[in-house]
């Protein structure tokens, strides 16, 4: 029985590995998804200056903490990539990948605290169009965080056995994008009051 190599590990005609090209294509579509949502939010925010009063109820300290957590998680996953593909240190890569997952869990915990606090004070998704945008954008982002954590966790077990080391970079690129989205969500929802 022949063991065919997965296509995604072969170099493509475009000069970069197929898997990496596929990840960039995915991210360009995600730019349109999040970009579209944020563009609509921006326009509505310009038109409704009173939303500044609603936005004053978001917790900038929690948002700042989450920004710190995600930026640090981006460092962890790039260290995992560096360990896996350049130093071939699969144990270090495994640990850095799970450090990234831990940061994701912290992010979700802080987000859950924020949601609880805001909902208990009456700022629900139907309270105001600002809060509709807030919950929609942050929840879709949190969904992507969960997806990224899941992918990194699953790939980590292969990496520990020295298999599919290129997937550390691929999941890492996805995770950096999740961080990038939050880098823009934070000033739009928390700082612009």
């Amino acid at each position, binding site marked *: 029985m022949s063991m065919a190599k997965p296509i995604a590990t072969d170099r493509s005609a475009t000069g970069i590995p197929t898997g990496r090209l596929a990840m960039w294509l995915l991210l360009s579509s995600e730019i*349109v998804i999040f970009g579209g949502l944020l563009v609509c939010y921006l326009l509505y925010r310009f038109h409704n200056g009173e939303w500044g009063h609603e936005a004053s109820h978001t917790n900038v300290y929690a948002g700042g903490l989450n920004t710190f957590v995600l930026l640090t998680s981006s460092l962890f996953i790039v260290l995992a990539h560096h360990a896996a593909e350049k130093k071939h240190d699969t144990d270090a890569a495994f640990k850095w990948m799970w450090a990234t997952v831990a940061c994701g869990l912290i992010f979700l915990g802080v987000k859950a605290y924020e949601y609880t606090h805001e909902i208990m004070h009456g700022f629900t998704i139907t309270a105001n169009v600002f809060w509709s945008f807030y919950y929609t954008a942050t929840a879709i982002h949190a969904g992507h965080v969960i997806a990224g954590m899941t992918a990194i966790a699953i790939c980590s077990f292969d990496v520990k056995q020295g298999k599919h080391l290129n997937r550390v970079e691929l999941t890492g690129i996805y995770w950096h994008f999740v961080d990038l989205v939050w*880098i823009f969500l934070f000033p739009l929802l928390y700082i612009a009051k």
Partner: protein
Amino acid sequence: MGHDAAAHGNGYYIKIWATLMVLLVISLVGPTLGILVVTLITAFGVAVVKATMVMAYFMHLNVEKKYIWGLLLSALVFILGLFFGIAPDIMANRGHNWVKCNGYDAKNLARFAHMGLAAEEIGLNKDGKICTPQRF
């Protein structure tokens, strides 16, 4: 990659992270000054700088094939098209043959009065609650 990333130890990435932390602090402190221009630069300008640094150094776009930048920029072009395409609908309250009819609270009465329209002309009742779109 056309660049030997093995030359970069962990310290290289930690320096980038430290720079991002400084930028994060700037983006948190700047808006507290309450000056609009400073807020725009420190909150949104710093966000753009942080994003560019993450893309260039963590995602290795600085050594990636240049057409990947083009792929991402083309997505941004679509976003800009969306922004300018729908801006007139969201930002304007009336056009040649239409009037935006929100009808959800009385503050809109002041907005329509400013445009020289009475509530009855645009299908709002006296407290602005009911809305019937009218053509002109």
